[in-house]
């Protein structure tokens, strides 16, 4: 059963009805349950849970420490290219923008990588816009191979691929894939993605499964909160993680909570999510998915990130530049994809983590891992319904 078919099992009207619940006693009762069902998760995303945010937070903190220890993994994004053929209304790199288009040469990729590695970062996320004529499969493979000696873990946040292409990326050194559905509401998706291959909602929705089938070790999913009503978005994103966990037990499933920003050039966030609502989403994710990693990026401001840390967060981006060539090659290489709200240095972030009684983790994967060994025993990767 595909995820689309799995989604169809849930009656949307009934889901919306639960998402309007205000009976906090029901939500309070859920806090004593050992594991939560999708129906319980729905209730935690409803107004009924607002009255129990504090006990939810207490439980979320303990669950996270139990499963992850007091460990916070740090990573940095590296933008390789901002060429893009998609027209996504909320994105600063979309094809309709008159911006400087750049792509790092392989020599520059290595220079940027070296510059980041020198700061102590060992987990790197590589990003591109969607233009397979520029950031080709060969270019991505070469970039991974060039960066592999400098990092313990390389992740990708790129356009969607086939199973075979994901397998190629794994062979070249990719350990994780980040792919946000942006919005799980198909109608909103169509309105926000005007043209380009990304307009295919179903293709994107199934891409993470293709990566699991190819043997990708970690998958990070999420909705871009703000594009559609957040309660539904959070439900489908959490359900997507739940589905992937059940179907691909060998893959670590993580979830992010990025919030989209309005831009000066005319994009206004259609369904804004405030801080309190973000906290509710974070807590509901943690209680529903105790084993899932949760990432908060530098899209969020420093003080909020500090406060969110003990509520279930396991991963933070740090020292981020969202321009192509932002670390070494020079800012002249184009525009930011989104403004960074937390500009603290790696040292400052590490200090903040320690101050809260947590441990910054720079490396949680063996460098010199032989990717040729990747893959799982046949028969185990695709179980479940």
């Amino acid at each position, binding site marked *: 059963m595909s995820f689309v078919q799995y989604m169809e099992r849930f009656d949307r009207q009934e889901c919306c009805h639960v998402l309007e619940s205000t009976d906090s006693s029901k939500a309070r009762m859920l806090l004593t349950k050992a594991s939560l069902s999708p129906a319980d998760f729905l209730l935690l995303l409803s107004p009924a849970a607002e009255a129990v945010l504090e006990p939810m937070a207490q439980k979320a903190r303990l669950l996270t420490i139990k499963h992850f220890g007091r460990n916070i993994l740090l990573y940095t994004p590296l933008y390789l290219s901002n060429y893009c053929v998609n027209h996504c209304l909320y994105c600063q790199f979309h094809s309709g923008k008159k911006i400087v288009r750049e792509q790092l040469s392989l020599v520059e990729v290595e220079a940027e990588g070296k510059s980041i590695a020198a700061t102590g970062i060992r987990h790197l996320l590589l990003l591109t816009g969607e233009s397979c004529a520029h950031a080709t499969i060969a270019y991505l493979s070469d970039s991974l191979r060039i960066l592999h000696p400098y990092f313990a873990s390389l992740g990708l946040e790129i356009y969607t691929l086939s199973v075979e292409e994901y397998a190629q990326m794994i062979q070249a050194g990719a350990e994780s894939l980040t792919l946000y559905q942006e919005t799980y509401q198909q109608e909103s998706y169509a309105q926000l993605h005007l043209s380009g291959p990304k307009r295919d909602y179903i293709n994107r929705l199934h891409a993470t499964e293709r990566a699991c089938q190819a043997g990708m070790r970690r998958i990070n999913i999420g909705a871009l909160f703000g594009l559609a009503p957040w309660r539904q978005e959070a439900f489908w994103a959490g359900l997507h993680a739940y589905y992937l966990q059940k179907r691909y037990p060998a893959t670590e499933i993580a979830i992010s909570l990025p919030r989209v920003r309005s831009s000066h050039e005319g994009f206004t966030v259609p369904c804004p999510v405030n801080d309190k609502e973000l906290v509710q989403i974070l807590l509901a994710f943690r209680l529903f998915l105790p084993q899932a990693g949760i990432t908060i990026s530098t899209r969020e401001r420093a003080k909020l990130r500090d406060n969110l840390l003990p509520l279930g967060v396991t991963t933070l981006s740090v020292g981020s530049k969202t321009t192509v060539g932002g670390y070494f090659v020079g800012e002249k290489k184009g525009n930011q994809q989104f403004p960074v709200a937390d500009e603290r240095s790696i040292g400052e972030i590490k200090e903040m983590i320690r101050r809260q009684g947590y441990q910054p983790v720079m490396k949680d994967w063996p460098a010199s891992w032989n990717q040729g*060994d990747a893959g799982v025993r046949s028969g185990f990767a695709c179980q479940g319904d």
Partner: protein
Amino acid sequence: MSKDLLAIGNSLIASRLFLGTGKIPLPKMKQVIEAAGTQVVTVALRRVDFDQPEENILDFIPDGAIIMPNTSGARTAAEAIRLAHIARAGGCGNWVKIEVIPDQKYLLPDNFETLKATEQLVKDGFTVLAYMSPDLIVAKSLEAVGAAAVMPLGAPIGTNRGLKMKELINIIIEECHVPVIVDAGIGRPSHAAEAMEMGASAVLLNTAIATADDSVAMALAFRLAVESGRIAYLAGMCGETSYARASSPLTGFLD
């Protein structure tokens, strides 16, 4: 008690409390290990950074402790074998705890792949301790291919639920000649004492100590519990009965 040493590979070990390190914050590591009296410490190779010594978890482990790298992250025998060799090449010694875990939700081990990895790594000269789901046939097979110890789980990792697999672990303790170390699931000192009373050679834990409010005090509590359980086991535990044992026997008149 001074002569009650645990022999694994070529080592004799006085402390029967082994520690995992993944969840213990680095600044507390030394204190916790010392309070636990631990001599064998397992470290996930995925967390060891040979290139950046200032962040190296190994530097936070007291001198004299045996470091047992584990293959956390391996999903197949081939990956576990590869990781064990990386650890040895990196100077982590000859011991390895095999973890082959293709299930990221419950973190349950793959016994079949664990057996394959163990067989190969024994041939490669490693002292192999194998983390496993408690299954007598697999435990005996691990023993047959040369595992230095078998490590059945008490309950899934990190659950603190205690010896949920007690009956099966008991059978393994009865039938195996190699040391049986109960690993995972031990949440309270009383669980650790119970495992030792059953005749386990040692216990390994992490979460219960690492996530306590005062992990140093909890390490001491576990040390005492493990010692207590061991002494009780050696002292000869009395069997349980479901009826009272009368001090004046009912059949005494037959004598």
